């Protein structure tokens, strides 16, 4: 896999300027680790990674910081937020760090004073576009996941594959399209509001005529495409590349009208039972090791200088679109409700 490695370099970060600050950062992180040792564990509610990848991340953290165990709780954004709110309503403090694909959930928690302000020492180490998501440092971008078109390579020739999002509405894909559910999945919610913005809600009304397979998670789209249950769909690029690397018949198209980039924030809960471990984990999420794990899992790192897996495009090589926090907060709930009425589920 080391062949064809390309390096994703972003200008504007001079290595020489970084060196002295790295030393300081190391000291701060060591101090956090010392404080976190007695806490012994951290509970991470995580959305934008598949459970397998999330477990690998947890193991990596424990390798780097022995003695601190990571409890990985992976679910869709909707379920993670539901469980977190059940925790909060019942007065039970379980979660230390939440990584969710819906910024709306982070903003909502912040508005209810449920997040802890923390300025990571590594904050400025990530690509500038991903810095300063929240003015009060309550949450920070920790992953950036591209949503693109996926197709089954046994059933669809590369030339026939959809080139842009409305191509999914071509009648030739009837009964063979898969999408996720915006009421469950944060990725699908963001993808959905972008589709609505670009093509109006008719996009989903036409989608209804396609009789799509509707999974809960966007990752389910990759699975059904791999299996041949459906042959085209809207899914997370990393999951499908990971599946393809195992020999599965699936490939990505980065649509001409824009790959949707889903930036997932992480925040520390104000009542985190393991606050120091949580801060340490937040540093880890911005660090090189975490981003290397993400890149190995065919993800897109948010730090410069991390080698990408073959087939993973650098973000400046493809047309990308993102949703504004305002769209995510206001438009997704409305879209999810309309979606439920249209598709009946």
């Amino acid at each position, binding site marked *: 896999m080391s062949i064809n490695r390309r390096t994703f370099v972003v200008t504007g970060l001079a290595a020489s300027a970084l060196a002295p600050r790295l030393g300081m950062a190391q000291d701060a992180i060591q101090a956090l680790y010392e404080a976190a040792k007695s806490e012994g564990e951290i509970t991470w509610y995580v959305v934008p990674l598949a459970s397998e990848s999330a477990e690998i991340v947890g193991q990596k953290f424990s390798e780097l910081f022995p003695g601190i165990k990571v409890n990985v709780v992976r679910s869709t954004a909707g379920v993670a937020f539901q469980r977190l709110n059940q925790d909060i309503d019942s007065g*039970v403090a379980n979660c230390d760090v939440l990584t969710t694909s819906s910024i709306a959930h982070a903003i909502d928690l912040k508005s209810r004073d449920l997040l802890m302000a923390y300025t990571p020492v590594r904050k400025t180490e990530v690509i500038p576009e991903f810095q300063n998501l929240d003015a009060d440092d309550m949450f920070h971008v920790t992953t950036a996941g591209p949503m693109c078109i996926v197709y089954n390579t046994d059933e669809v020739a590369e030339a026939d594959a959809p080139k842009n999002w409305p191509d999914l509405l071509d009648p030739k894909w009837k009964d063979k399209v898969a999408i996720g559910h915006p009421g469950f999945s944060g990725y699908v919610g963001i993808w959905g509001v972008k589709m609505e913005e670009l093509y109006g809600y008719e996009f989903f009304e036409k989608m209804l005529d396609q009789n799509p397979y*509707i999974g809960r998670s966007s990752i389910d789209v990759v699975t*059904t495409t791999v299996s041949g249950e459906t042959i085209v769909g809207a899914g997370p690029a990393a999951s499908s590349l990971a599946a393809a690397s195992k020999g599965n018949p699936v490939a990505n198209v980065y649509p001409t009208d824009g790959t949707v980039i889903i930036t997932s924030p992480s925040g520390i809960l104000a009542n985190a039972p393991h606050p120091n471990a949580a801060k340490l984990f937040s540093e880890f999420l911005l660090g090189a090791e975490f981003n290397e794990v993400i890149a190995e899992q065919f993800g897109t790192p948010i730090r410069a200088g991390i080698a990408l897996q073959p087939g993973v495009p650098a973000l400046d090589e493809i047309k990308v679109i993102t949703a504004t926090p305002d769209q995510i907060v206001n438009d997704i709930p409305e879209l999810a409700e309309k979606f439920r009425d249209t598709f009946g589920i």
Partner: protein
Amino acid sequence: MTDIANVDGLRPLARRPKFDWSLVIFGLLTAILVGLVVYPMSRLLIESLSDPKTGSFTVANFFDVARRSRYLIAYWHTIQLAVVTVIMSVAMALPMAWVVSRTDIPGRSIFYFGTLGAFIMPPFLGAIGWILLAGPNAGWINQIWTSLTGIEEPLVNIFSLWGLAFVIALNVFPLIFIFATSALDLISSEMEEAAAIHGAGPMRTTWIITLPLALPAILGAIMLVFLETIALYGTPALIAIPARFNVATTQLTTFFEYPAKIELAMAFSVPLVLITVVLLGAQRLLLRGGHVAVSGKGGARTAMRVGRWKWVFLAHGVAVTLLAVILPAGILVSTSFQVAWAKAPVLSNLTLDNYRAILFEQATVREAMFNTVYFALASATACTILGFLTAYVVIRKLIPYASALAFLAVAPVAVPGIVLAICFYAAFAGPPFSLYGSSLIIILAFITRFLPIAFVSCASGIRSLNPELEEAVRIHGGSRMRAMVEVVAPVLKKSLMGVWILVFVICSRELSTAMFLTSHQNRVISILTLDMSEQGDYETLAAMGVVLLVVTSTVVAIGMRLLGRDFMLRRN
């Protein structure tokens, strides 16, 4: 339930025991039952009739539910689903029951195996097995169909009302089988012979004599199937969402999306509980009527000779066994060893990685497996003890109003598991108990949910026991407690063990009761399966399912070894 005369206390005892601590224990028992049953269920009424903000009385929640067409459609879908499921499960179970009970068809003992297997198979695993088998494009059955005929249109589509009902029917038909065989076993052959003498063939005799006599029991079982179906969550979550067929239970879960609308969930649940209460009442009436028609012990029964038809019936029973047990279990086992589930299980596609991942790598799965076994052990033990104590108090009328305890112990039957979970969430999750996410809350919910089974089985055991034995203990100065622990329990050892195993098996796969009580520390396999199925990671899920099946089957096999073949299938 209270037909045994109370002899205790009527005769003067030679030596009065000192202070009888048993009374304290029985008092405590009452308190536990009130805490587990009355308190959570009262929340259903209170929350559904309260304004979520002010807490004042309102019926607005019911109006809110009735106004949304999507909510009402969910109910309508649920009823459609239950009707279709009932028809399918009757078609599966009734011929099998008749063959086992009334005919001389060879090889019919395999039907017991099929029924037991279908009962052990957790519904969500059966559903996953059938998604792999009958997914419209990638399912094995459709792939084989297309390769044989060249027709692209799928032969079967699991993601439909019919598919969903079929998968549920394969899981619930044992209920009808059990009720029908026990009713058919009681019908004497005399009436059938009379029909035969008047020239009716075996089929006609069965149609006009045998079936009508067994009808009340069958109708009773049909109602249970109806109730099981409307309360089921796991299978609909896996199949109904892709099928875009919203049912009441999948709708219920959406009320828990943030901001959680507990009051709407409660109001939405009330009709489910009402339907259950009405049908259970009707079922009791029917079964009572049934005793008259069947008149207790039948006379001699001779097996009916079915001639050429026997092959048809044998084929039917084998087909049901194949569909309910062998195919889904087989596909789970084969998938659990595969790299990619939709590809043929050729050598390059085989791996042990899925097992390595769940057993050694993914801490989450390991913890969930541990929790599953731990909760099932604890719940089965507590449930058996509680059921036994309550049954003893009730049958021997040890405290005033003992029959009220009997009512409390069976009341949870009327509450579908998912609704019980909501009640427990409202009652115990928050302060002052703050049990949300703990092991205790799941165990308590399991105990409550399965208490009726434990109570009814223990009660029938105790009823069959002559009180003389206990009186001997009492006369010699032993306490009630001593009589119970040293005499009654040992005598009823086998039936108590049977209850324990039954509760263990159903706890190990229970999903809906755990639904809203789960946080990360108390996840069980059923919940984890649902979480992981969101990503469609069927290879790992299948490996988990196989491990779970091995554990439950082992327990059942031990039970059969100790208690005889049909202990799982006896129902009271």
